Structures are given as C-alpha cells and as structure tokens.
C-alpha cells in the first residue's frame, strides 16, 4: 500500500512532534553571514571579493610560483635541451613527433609529444588544476558555492542556464578542461550542450588571457567585450533554438561550515587523480595526432583551402591562416604568432577574437570527445556556424565604422 504525499507528511509531522524539541536559539555568525551573502546588495560585492581571491590565488600559486618560477626553468633550461641532444636523428619522423622542432628554445614552441606535451600537462595544467580544485572544494564545502549560484540564477536563466552554470564559467577562465567536466553539474542535455558550446566559444582560458595581455595589451579590452557580447547573444539564441527543457532547479543553500581538512584532501586527491588518468593521455595523444597531420601535409592543404575564406569573409591577412589553424593545438601560442604579422589594429582584434572563439584547444577537444561523439559533432557544427557568423559580423561592423 502506497501512501499519498499528504499522508506521508502527516506521519512525518507526527514523528517529528514526538522526537524534536526546539529551544530558543539566537542567530549564529554563520546565519548572519549566510543571509548577507545571498542578498544582492551585499552579496554581489562579496561575490566580487571571492572571485578576486580565487583569481589572485590562482595566478600567484599556479602562474607566478609553480609555472613561471620553476616549471619553465626546469623544462626550457634542462628537459628540452637534454631531449634535443639525447634523441637520435634530428631530421627523422620520430624526432618530429616526439621532440619536435630541434631549434626550439622553449617547450611552448617545440611541439613534440614528450616536450610540449609533458610541459603543458605537468608544467602548466597540473598546478593550475590542483589549486583550482582546491579552491573550488573549499568554496563548495564551506557552502559559498550554492549562494553564488543563487545570486547568478536569474541572470543565467535568460541565456538558458541556471545558477550552477557559474561554476564551469569560472573554471573556464582558468582552463576549459576542468570546465567541460564541471558542466556535468547541469541538469539537462540541453543545458550541458549550451554551456559546453559557450565555453569553447567565448570563454578565453587563463593561458590565452595571459598571452593576450603580453602581446596585444591595447586591444584586450575590446576582445573581452566582443567575447562577452557573444556569450550573452549566442547563449540567448542557443537557448531558443536548441530543443529540450531548461528546468528551474531548487538550489539547496546549506549553512556555512568550516571545510574539513580530511574531506577537502580526499576530494582534491580524487579530482587531481582524475585529471592525471583522464586528461593527460588525451593531451599527449592529441599532440601526436596533430603532428602526424602536419607531417602528412593535411594541415597545409587545409590552410590553402581556407585562405580565401579568411581573407574575404573575415578581412584578415592571408598570413594569419597558419596561426589560426595552429590555434587548435595551443591557442595561446597562436596569439603569440599573430603578434608578428603586420596588420591594422582592427584586423588584430578580429584575428584574436576569432582565435578565441574558433575552436577549443586540443585538450578541451579531447574532453568533449569523452562527453559523447554526438554532442561533439553538434558542438562542432554550432562552432563552425558561429565562427562564420560572428567573424563576418565583426568584419561588417568594421566596414561600417570605416576601420576595416
């Protein structure tokens, strides 16, 4: 015999009445702060502070301390020269595949599986992932994350997502690889698809942002503005076009608690291990495959094929085609290559925006493959369409303004 919901609630009330006694309690510090951090007036400044801390700590630890401070020196100063010297036969195919460019001075440029692949996986992404997950876990366990989700919910619903989409969006600004994994917290296929597409398209990763700031500091503001507009507009369009539901979910807001060290350590270990076993092989394999495509002339052929399109439709010089295609491997590197090509600043903005939106890097691509081939094909379709439309639009705006 099944009970109806009402009968069940009556029973619950009867049991609770019998067993639970409420004393007089005053608001605890956690309660007071809990309330202040979800109210928009005080909550939004708090969110700004928390995000600042997130980014600052991320940049200081992963960027300044581990990668710039130690890993670059280690890989460029010792590992790369050693590999270049020790691997036999600089002209051979296997040298190209595994070590890459024999004249390269940094692991960014070498492009071999055992040089760039290892450097990117362990020197750049691993420390980033580690500190990222540490902070995400702290935010999660302390109970702040659900509050941030509540704050963002109204806004994100307009583009077909719910509050929890803020998590992959933040993660994506660091690296799209964990961000793609984080789209799992979203409820429906539609939402995951929208988020994954928007991530790949409009959220530049930390490495890209860093290189942009170094190479094209004057145009970064414009690039980010274009990306933000794109994020909102295409999110809105996608949420209308793609079938499926966008359910309202109830976000449960727990009271604030101090995160427990053992719990945090365990979560952190699980997630980092997940990265090591899942993503690292994909990054290495991806570089190998792209190298093979280069060797077989496929990429060169593609560049020739695509050149007229880039020149007439996007209005960028022919030389940019190479870097744009290389963006598949490392977007940040592509931005660096672009900087050496002479062009007008508007063309530069167009090219940098294109690189950002146009295709996920090889690691993100690998993560998307893992989420399912059908999703991926659809995402590629949308990507291609959006790149064509958006690139053309930017070009058109430039023509109208008389600057392109």
């Amino acid at each position, binding site marked *: 015999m*099944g009970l109806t919901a009402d009968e069940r609630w009556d029973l619950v009330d009867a049991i609770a009445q019998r067993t639970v*006694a409420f004393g007089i309690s005053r608001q605890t510090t956690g309660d007071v702060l809990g309330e202040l951090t979800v109210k928009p007036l005080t909550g939004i400044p708090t969110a700004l502070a928390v995000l600042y801390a997130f980014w600052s700590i991320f940049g200081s630890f992963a960027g300044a301390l581990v990668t710039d401070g130690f890993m670059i020196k280690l890989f460029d100063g010792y590992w790369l020269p050693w590999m270049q010297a020790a691997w036999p036969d600089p002209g051979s195919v296997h040298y190209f595949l595994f070590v890459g460019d024999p004249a390269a001075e940094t692991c960014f440029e070498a492009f071999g599986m055992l040089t760039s692949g290892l450097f990117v996986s362990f020197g750049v992404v691993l420390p980033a992932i580690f500190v990222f997950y540490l902070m995400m876990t702290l935010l999660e366990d302390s109970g702040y994350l659900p509050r941030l989700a509540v704050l963002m919910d109204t806004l994100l619903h307009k583009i077909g997502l719910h509050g929890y989409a803020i998590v992959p969006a933040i993660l994506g600004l660091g690296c799209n690889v964990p961000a793609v994994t984080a789209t799992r917290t979203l409820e429906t296929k539609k939402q995951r698809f929208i988020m994954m597409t928007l991530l790949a398209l409009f959220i530049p990763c930390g490495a890209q942002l860093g290189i942009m700031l170094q190479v094209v500091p004057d145009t970064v503001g414009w690039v980010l503005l274009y990306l933000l507009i794109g994020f909102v507009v295409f999110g809105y369009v996608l949420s209308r076009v793609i079938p499926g539901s966008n359910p309202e979910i109830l976000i449960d807001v727990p009271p604030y608690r101090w995160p427990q060290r053992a719990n945090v350590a365990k979560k952190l270990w699980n997630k980092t291990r997940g990265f090591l076993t899942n993503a690292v092989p994909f990054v290495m394999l991806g570089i190998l495959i792209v190298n093979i495509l280069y060797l077989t002339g496929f990429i060169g052929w593609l560049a020739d094929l695509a050149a007229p399109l880039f020149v007439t439709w996007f209005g960028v010089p022919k030389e940019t085609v190479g870097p744009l295609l290389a963006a598949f491997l490392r977007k940040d590197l592509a931005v660096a290559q672009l900087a050496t090509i002479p062009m007008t600043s508007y063309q530069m903005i167009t090219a940098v925006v294109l690189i950002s939106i146009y295709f996920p890097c090889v690691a993100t691509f690998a993560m998307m493959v893992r989420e399912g081939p059908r999703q991926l094909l659809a995402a590629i379709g949308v990507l291609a369409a959006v790149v064509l439309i958006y690139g053309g639009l930017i070009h058109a705006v430039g023509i109208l303004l008389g600057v392109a």
Partner: protein
Amino acid sequence: MHDHHDRLTILMMGNPNVGKSALFNRLTGANAVVSNYPGTTVDVTKGSLRKDRHSYEIIDVPGAYSLEARDAAEEVAVRILDTHPDAVVMIILDATRVERGLYLALEVIERGAPCIVALNMMDVAQDKQIAVDTAEMQRVLGIPVVATTAISAEGVKHLADMIRKAQVADLSAIRSRLNGQEPDQGAVARCAGCGGGGCR
C-alpha cells in the same frame, strides 16, 4: 554493481547537504571510487567498509528529497534502489531539519528495505538548541537510530556496529505506535527502552 553473496551492500541515502559524503568518507576510509552512473551525468561514489570480519560495499547515493524522480539525481537514486533489492539502506537525516529527511525515509521504508537511520549533524543541532530524541525515534520507527556528527566522527563507530541490526520497518506498526502512545507525552524520559523497539 554485482552483488557478491558474502558482501552486504549499503546504500547511503539522504537529502542534499546533510553531511552524507562526510559520513561516507568517515565510514569508508581512503578507497572510494567515483564513477559516472551509466547513462547519466551524476557521480556515484562507492567504497568499502570492513567491520568485525564483515565486509560491506557502501554506495553514496546522490542526494534526493524524494523518490519521485524529479531531477537527474533523484532518478539515479531510484534506479540504484531498484538494482539493489537486497541492500541495507542507511538513511541520513539532518538533525536540524528532521522533517525533510523523514519524508524520504518514509518513502524508503515503504519499499520494504531493511533500514537504519543516522541522525547526523548533532553538533549543529546542539548549537541551534534543537534536541532530537533518538531513543524515541528509534522506538517509533522500529529501526536503529544512531546520533552522529560526521565532522568529528562522533557516533560513526556505533553506526558501523548497528548496520547489522538494520530492520525492515512496518508502516502500520509505526502508525499504531504513534497513536497508541498518544496519551502519555513524557517521551523524553523514556530512555530505558533505548535498545527496545527495533533491534531485537
């Protein structure tokens, strides 16, 4: 996934944010495996517990408010319940919000699975001046009720001991106990019968 006949499966169920995962970590130690539940995007964690020569497989079922499968997590919760008909269900209640959790607990009890209740977050309840009478709850429900604080591991060992005493509760018995005892409300004092009701 496959039930070994010598190995009892325990499903940990409860509302989201009741400290279920923390309790899971306390029970299972460091050997948990997180996996994607087939066909969904909900993560399910499995671990094992060894206690007095008994070995248990513990599954941390995604947090749910009911078994009406209103979202992906609840759907997975129902499916896990369906695929483990012989499992013991450990229901985790938040001592500060007992009602919400009891609703789910009753739904599980109705399915006829052997159950045990962990009344978690007792420390927070104490801070908020909420007193929950575990003995009385145990007597009314007819299944073991153990007070725990996952954060400080209080009561966790007792909880592990009580797993073997999980009982199938009977709704009509719960009803009659609620009605039959209606006249004398002095429930709080009745601690002598602690072990009574459920764990024969």
